[in-house]
C-alpha cells in the first residue's frame, strides 16, 4: 500500500511538473515579450496557451539526429542525466503542511547533493557531441556551476545554524514560530542565493554556457528533437526546483494568510521567484567569463562567509 501511494505521488508530481514546465516556458516568453514591446506567442489557443504544447509535439516528431562522430552512449545518456537529478530533488520538497515528499532529516543536504549531478549532463553532452562550440560551452558550464555551487550552499548555512536542523519541514515551522520569513534576518544570504542560483541555472546574465551570439547554442548545439526537449525540460525543472527551495528557505514555504490554502501560497511564491529571473533575462547583457569567476569567488563567497560568521555570533550571543 505504501508503495502504491509512493508511485501515485511520484506520478502526480511528475505530471504537475510537466505542466508547470510547459507554462513556465510560456510565461517566460510572455513576460519577456511584454518587456520587449511585443505580444509574445499568441497563435495557439487563447492567449497562446498551447504554444509550448505545439512546440513539444514538433520536437517529439522530429528525426533523432546523432552526429556521426559523436560518442553515442554518452551522447544519449547526457540529457537523461541532466533531467534525472533535477526531478529527483523534488522528492524532498514539502508543498504545504499536509502535502509533501519524503520527510527526511537531511532534506537540504540531499537537495544540494543530488542537484549538483546536473553538471555531469552538461559536461557529457558537450564533450560527446564532438563539436567545438559544444565543448567550449560545456567547459564554461562546468566551471561556472562548480564555482557558483559554493556560494549557493554557503548562503544556506546561515539558516541551518539558526534552525539547527536540515529538515525542510522544521525550517518552515521555525519560520512560523519566529513570526517572520528568513528573507528578513537572512537578507544577505537571500541575495547571494538568488545571484548564484542564476549562474547555477545558466540563466541570463550568466548564460555563458549557451551564449548564442558566441557559441551558437553552447553545450547542446548538436542536440535536436526530443533530446533537445529533454535538455530544456531539465533546465526548467531545475529552475522550478531551485525556486521551490528558495521559497521554502527564505520565503516561508506554504506560510501565508489563511484565506488561501498553503499550497497556493507556495506556488505563488515560486512564480514570484521565477518572474525575477525572467525579468533579468530580458534586461541584462551577458557577463564575461573572467568577470563571472571573479564575481563568484571574490564577492559572493566572502559575502556568504560573512553572513555565516554574523549569524553564528548572533546565535551564540542570543543563546
Amino acid at each position, binding site marked *: 500500500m505504501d508503495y502504491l501511494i509512493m508511485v501515485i505521488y511520484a506520478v502526480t508530481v511528475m505530471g504537475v511538473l510537466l505542466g508547470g514546465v510547459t507554462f513556465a516556458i510560456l510565461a517566460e516568453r510572455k513576460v519577456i515579450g511584454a518587456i520587449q514591446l511585443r505580444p509574445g506567442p499568441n497563435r495557439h489557443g487563447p492567449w497562446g496557451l498551447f504554444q509550448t504544447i505545439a512546440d513539444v509535439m514538433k520536437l517529439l516528431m522530429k528525426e533523432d539526429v546523432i552526429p556521426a562522430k559523436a560518442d553515442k552512449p554518452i551522447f544519449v545518456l547526457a540529457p537523461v542525466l541532466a533531467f534525472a537529478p533535477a526531478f529527483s530533488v523534488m522528492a524532498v520538497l514539502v508543498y504545504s503542511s499536509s502535502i509533501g515528499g519524503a520527510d527526511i532529516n537531511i532534506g537540504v543536504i540531499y537537495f544540494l547533493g543530488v542537484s549538483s549531478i546536473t553538471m555531469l549532463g552538461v559536461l557529457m553532452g558537450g564533450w560527446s557531441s564532438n563539436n*567545438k562550440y559544444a565543448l*567550449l560551452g560545456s567547459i564554461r558550464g562546468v566551471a561556472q556551476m562548480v564555482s557558483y555551487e559554493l556560494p549557493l550552499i554557503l548562503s544556506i548555512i546561515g539558516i541551518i545554524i539558526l534552525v539547527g536542523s536540515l529538515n525542510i519541514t522544521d525550517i518552515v515551522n521555525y519560520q512560523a514560530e519566529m513570526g517572520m520569513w528568513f528573507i528578513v534576518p537572512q537578507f544577505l544570504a537571500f541575495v547571494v542565493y538568488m545571484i548564484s542560483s542564476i549562474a547555477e541555472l545558466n540563466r*541570463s546574465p550568466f548564460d555563458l554556457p549557451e551564449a548564442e*551570439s558566441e557559441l*551558437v547554442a553552447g553545450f547542446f548545439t548538436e542536440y535536436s528533437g526530443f533530446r533537445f526537449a529533454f535538455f530544456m525540460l531539465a533546465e526548467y525543472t531545475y529552475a522550478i526546483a531551485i525556486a521551490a527551495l528558495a521559497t521554502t528557505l527564505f520565503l516561508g514555504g506554504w506560510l501565508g494568510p489563511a484565506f488561501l490554502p498553503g499550497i497556493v501560497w507556495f506556488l505563488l511564491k515560486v512564480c514570484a521567484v521565477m518572474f525575477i529571473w525572467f525579468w533579468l533575462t530580458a534586461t*541584462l*547583457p*551577458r*557577463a*564575461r567569463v573572467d568577470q563571472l569567476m571573479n564575481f563568484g569567488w571574490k564577492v559572493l563567497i566572502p559575502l556568504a562567509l560573512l553572513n555565516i560568521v554574523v549569524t553564528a555570533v548572533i546565535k551564540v550571543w542570543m543563546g
Partner: protein
Amino acid sequence: MSELKTETMTLNMGPQHPSTHGVFRLQLKVDGETIKEAIPVMGYLHRGSEKLAERFLYSQFIPYTDRLDYLNAMTNNYVYCAAIEDLLEWEVPERAEYLRVITMELNRIASHLVWWGTYLLDIGAMSPFLYAFRDRETILDRLNEISGARMTFNYHRIGGVKWDSPDGWIEKVQETVKELYENIQEFNVLVTGNEVFRARTIGVGRLSKEQVINWGLSGPIARGSGIAIDVRKTEPYSIYDRFDFEIPTEQEGDVFARYKVRIAEMFQSLRIIEQACEQIPEGDIITKKGKRLMMIKPPAGEVYRRAEASKGEIGVYAISNGKNKPYRIKLRRPSFVNVSILQHLLVGESIQNLVAIFGSLDVVLGEVDA
C-alpha cells in the same frame, strides 16, 4: 608533476554564425578560449559590383550602390551620383540637395540603430534589439513614403532626386525627429549606464590613434580614438556647410568609446534634419538634363568623390572615356577598410571579447565583399 600536454584548437567561426552579421568567416586558433591567431576570410558575398558598373549606363548603376552597405543605402546613392555630377559639372537644384541631406541623415540614424540593437544582441541583451527596431521602423516608413522602398531606395539621381516629397512629409519627419530624441535618450538611460554592459565594453578592443591612421580607419572608429575626422565637416559636400552640428569624439579608443560616439552621432543627425526641415525651399528636384537618363554622357576625365557614410568614409573614383558607360568605377568601402584591423585586434582576446570587438567595428558584409 609532469606538464599537461595541451594543444591549440582551430575553430572556424562562420560563415554561418550568429555573430558574424552575414557571411564572414574567421579562422581562429584558440587555446581554451584565448585567441592565438585570427585569419579573416571574406568574399562569400562578392558580386563584382565594380566590374558590373562598366557594363551599365551611368544611371543604371545606382541600384547596385544600394546593395553595398544595405543599411545605409542613401549615402551610397549620393556619393555615386555626386561623383558623376562632378564629371558632368552639373549643378543640383536646392530642394534636391535638402531632400538628399534629410534622407541621408535619416538613413544614418537607421543604420546606427541597427548597429545599436545588434551590438547589444552580441553582448547578450535581447531587448534593446526590439527597441531599436521599433524606431528604425518609423524611419523606414518615412523613407518608404518618399522613395517607395524600405532599404534599397534607389532614390538619388544624377542631377537630383527621383521623387519630390509627398504632401505633409516634412511635417511627418519633424514629428519623427521629436520622437527619436526621446527614444534615443531612453536607450541611453537603459543601456549606457548598465553595470554589466560597461564591464563588458570599457577597456576592450583598444585602438590607438597611430593604429587608426596607419590602417586608414574612418568613421565612428576613428572618432572613438580621438581623431576628429568627418568628411561632412573637414571637406563639406552637398550643403552640409549650412548646418550647425558637431563631430562627437572620444579619446579612449575602446569599444565603449565607439558606442558613445555612435549614440552622440544620432543626436547630431537629428539636429541636422531639424535644421534642414526648416530651411528646405520649394523648387525643382532634378535638373532638366538629369531626366534624360540615356543621354548622360560625361566628358572624358576622372574624379574622386567622398562622403561620410555611417560606417566611415565612402569614396567613388570614376573614370569616363566620353561614352555613355563608365570606363572604371572604384569604390572605397569603409567596412572593407575597417575590418582589416580585426586580425590584429583579436590576438590574445577571448571569444567573448571577439564578439564585442567585431560588433563594435560595425561591418556590413555587403560592403566588405562588394
